[in-house]
């Protein structure tokens, strides 16, 4: 078992024939992901990486039955691509592109929600179910199958955490990069609930960062609904004070978003919080041996 994606998941790529889209789609195919086609306007009817290219997401979904889209279009077109996927009946859009305008993401996410489409990202490494399905830009070879679910705002900390978990001999069920932009799709709360329901996941690693209050919200959910052991790391304990002009944002969220505040909130609900990412692997071994 796993969450969200597995070896049967059919995936299309928006921005399929571009440089980034091509390179990573090829890597995903090599990992075993069922990439069934892609979308690039005006290249419909062509073949790319041995898979059909379509002009619209609608065409691609009708022909291939894909349920997931991996989005690599340039930042200015991300909002449009997400809304197109939502209307075409895609169930999950994995948005890899970095630098999408925040206003576009507000619109796109609201539209996705209206159409019942889940989103991941933007500006994230994607999602991988170990040894089954990689949808994103992570180095596939480090993800070995196992019993630990991982959720991270940061791409490289996803790799760091995974590598340690695998070296300790536990392996990964599914690892999810949620991104750290102001507007993101699936977040800790939805994903924690999915891992709680997944029988193969025995432990959850949660990697956060300073800023926002998603980790504080997660602590509330953990207290009420999550019974599986959790190991957490929050990056940015030594980050300098933000050089912002106004502090209205912090007032809105009701929290300053510091690492200390988040670590304390998680510790208070029984999460094993480590002070360095170098301790993640050992902490997982410890909680699993309890």
């Amino acid at each position, binding site marked *: 078992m796993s969450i969200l994606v597995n070896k049967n998941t059919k995936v299309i790529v928006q921005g399929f024939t571009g440089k980034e889209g091509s390179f990573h789609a090829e890597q995903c195919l090599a990992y075993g992901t069922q990439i069934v086609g892609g979308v690039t306007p005006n290249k419909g009817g062509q073949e790319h990486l041995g898979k059909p290219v379509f002009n619209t997401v609608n065409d691609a979904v009708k022909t291939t039955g894909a349920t997931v889209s991996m989005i690599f279009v340039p930042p200015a077109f991300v909002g449009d691509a997400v809304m197109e996927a939502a209307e075409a009946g895609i169930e999950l859009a994995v948005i890899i592109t970095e630098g999408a305008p925040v206003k576009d993401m*507000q619109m796109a*996410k609201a539209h996705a929600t209206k159409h019942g489409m889940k989103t991941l990202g933007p500006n994230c490494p994607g999602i991988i179910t170990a040894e089954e399905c990689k949808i994103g*830009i992570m*180095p596939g070879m480090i993800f070995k199958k196992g019993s630990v679910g991982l959720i991270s705002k940061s791409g490289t900390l996803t*790799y760091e955490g995974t*590598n340690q978990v695998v070296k300790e001999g536990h392996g990964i069920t599914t690892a999810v990069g949620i991104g750290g932009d102001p507007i993101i799709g699936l977040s800790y709360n939805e994903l924690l609930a999915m891992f709680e329901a997944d029988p193969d996941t025995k432990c959850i690693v949660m990697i956060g960062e300073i800023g926002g209050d998603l980790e504080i919200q997660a602590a509330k959910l953990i207290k009420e609904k999550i019974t599986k052991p959790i190991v957490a790391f929050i990056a940015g*304990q*030594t980050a300098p004070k933000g050089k912002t002009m*106004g502090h209205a944002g*912090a007032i809105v969220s009701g929290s300053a978003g510091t690492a200390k505040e988040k670590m304390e909130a998680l510790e208070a609900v029984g999460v094993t919080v480590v002070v360095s990412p170098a301790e993640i692997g050992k902490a997982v071994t410890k909680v699993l041996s309890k």
Partner: protein
Amino acid sequence: MNIHEYQAKQIFKKYGVPTPKGIMVESVKDAVKAAEQLGGPVWVVKAQIHAGGRGLGGGVKLAKSLEEVETLANEILGMTLVTHQTTDEGKLVQKLYIEDGADIKDELYLSVVLDRKLEMPLIMASTEGGMNIEDVAENTPEKIITIPVDPAIGFQSFHGRQLAFGLGITDKQEQKNIIRFANKLFTLYMENDAEMIEINPLVRTSNGEFLALDGKMGFDNSALGRQPEVLAMRDLTEEDADEVEAAKYGLSYVALDGEIGCMVNGAGLAMGTMDTINYMGGTPANFLDVGGSANAETVAKGFEIILKNPKVKAIFVNIFGGIVRCDRIANGIIEATKITDIHVPVIVRLDGTNAPEASEILKNANISNLIVADDLGDGAAKSVAAAKGE
């Protein structure tokens, strides 16, 4: 990206958001000329820096004569202003805004920001203007009203009524004025891809008009490509020179106070590396994210920027290659040793994509004072030891 008060007010004027008349100047002579042009009888001389709290820091002063304008301009221009939003070193004042004195009945607060939880903009207002809004939120949260505005429907009359009644405005003309003010402000927030607008204070005049006495604006960096007029307002002298230089090469750099230089891929791992160094008893000298497209040239540039800081006693290169290929980083390190004199120990940890090739490249290069680390913990420990001269 942030802009100056005078620039925010240019945008306000374009959208019909009322502000007092004012002129930006860069010399004392022009300050007096501007004051003459505005006419008086009262002027405000305002330091233009990218930070709040200027008034308390002595950067905003009232003048009642042209002579006084001259004296104050002399005093403020060229001063280093320290406020609660600047670093301890403060910021050099290079520009002044000479503004008409306003007829102030009372002071309110108004801002538009993104509410991350609701995923839409939020109008925030308070009758407690002129004060630090964080203090108001802390001490009297009931005096802050918040009105989320869904961009799909835009600013509607009911939003305006919530605002007017929330602020206790009962006069019908005043209600109309504040609603029109907020509507225009919301429009300019959306059309310019602003991240935040803060007007503190928003003043009510004795004839019931509302005026933006101050104006702070920040913008979504990801949207600057489609906002050329906003981008043209960027003032690089307000930004850290090393950070600006690093950004040209796709590097994200922030200087800190410690002794161990850091070069890492990804912001999360970069912060995690700093945290680990700290946990092991060392102090990070900087945050540096080489980004996803790191190559030999950018790595060499990274070394150059890190080594500009004389406090640096060791450098920890920590790369977990995903998109970034470790062999490119290794070549970058070799390139850097050719063009820069690297006089401190360099601790290198390379993992992930093409890590074996990278370690082969480094082994063959035979660089003195290069220390290879097995993992993050090992690398941080070796860096801390090296910085201590062990």
